[in-house]
């Protein structure tokens, strides 16, 4: 496998959160409490 130094592609953001008074999909009370998505 070709080698290059590891690169960070994505990290948590403190901005750009959903604005709905209902929870964003991340905390949808039905679909799950998946904090990841």
């Amino acid at each position, binding site marked *: 496998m070709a080698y290059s130094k*590891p690169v960070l592609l994505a990290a948590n953001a403190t901005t*750009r959160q959903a*604005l709905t008074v209902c929870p964003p999909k991340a905390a949808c009370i039905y679909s799950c409490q998946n904090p990841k998505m």
Partner: protein
Amino acid sequence: MNPPQISVRLKPDSFVRKLDGIGFIYSIGSHRQEVFDASGAVFLQQLGRSFRAGDEIADDLCRIFTGVPHEVLLGDFGEFAAYLCRAGFVEILGGIAQPAISPATRAQQGSAVPARDRGLAETSEFLKEYFRVHPTVFSFQFYTTEQCNERCVHCYVDRESHGRPLPPDRRLALIDQLGALGTLDVTFTGGEALMSSDLPALIDRARRNDLVVSLLSNLTILTDELLDAIKNPNVDVVQTSIYSMDAGIHDAITRRPESLKQTRSALERLRSAGVRVTISCPVLRENRDSFQDVLRYGAESGIPVNCDFAIMAKENGDATNLAHRLATGDLEGVVRAVVQGSPKYRERLEQNREAPDAPSLDTCGVGSYMLCMKSTGEFLPCPGFGLVVGNAWDSDIGEVWRNSPQLAALRRFNRKERFPQCISCEATAFCNFCLAKFHNESGWDSGVMPPGYCEIARINRRVAQEYLATGR
């Protein structure tokens, strides 16, 4: 002199997954989650639950990255581990490895810290796009039973049995399948999940498969034995529903006397035991004037409260429970109550001052990263979404995920085509577009937005703009 030897291991609440071409790491404690490129994925795979020596890891890396000197990989891994340690994902014994290579070689190798400072994506957005291209069962919701000791007036679960429940050994085997598929988390829900006698065994099996666990429960029958099972390093969060701090109102919704008292007591026991908890608060006609007290309780006690103003019709298409849904005339009042009663929501608005007008035509993760299963083995796209896409009696999870025609159709869903009215809508940033809710009322691909959904988004936008303009 040889550089000091280091040993590295994942913290007990950190989880690593290697996906196709990328690596992912998640911490329950901090909710921090990061994605690395293909080399980073290989580095992440070297991390386990026991300490491993840097030299041993570099040996393994040499076998993968053939031709790269041991000392280069040892040095780069040391830097990588140091970064992860600062970020709270790993523990390191010994000094941070200093690469035993010349400064010139190090300069050729590029940056010492593995980060792409500029243009760094937000993890959930990155993964959403990734899973659209590479569908993966990353999140799994498991109805351990449809039976419940409450009878909530608005419940969407179809409690009628549509087949034989899977036996305990099959349930455990399904958890093993998730482990083999690289799933990150499993949510145990119901019905009332605590009524399943094998719940401790399921949680334990999830831990053995290195899965993150969430639990949705009314908590009314939380025993010490169950509490012990939940106090598990793999358990991320326990969610429970509280509708009102007025027992008369809460218990009338659950139709179980003493339920508020029991739920609150169990919630406090979980918190005392160090378990993270959240509250869901569906808002109905019955609690429209008292759910604000739940927001206040959450704000005072530091428990996140999530509301829903558009309850879901039943999975079997029966919409009689929607008689409890808020009337259109109630919506503005409840939206204003959240803006006024939730400091966290106001903070989110302040941080996103520019966003209210930004279009957001997202859908959700059905078909791309989440799957749900009822106790009878019927697979649904997500909880509440009354569309059977396969059955665990006939197929394993991977087969259903790959071969289900219903999931394939969901993956082809295009919001702009099916819901063109969204394209010109100004309130999409405030829209909770939920195919499960639409499905139970009118069919997920009907293009019909059930009444009230658009109204909520428009009212939410107007109230948010007023708040940003006037501070009220």
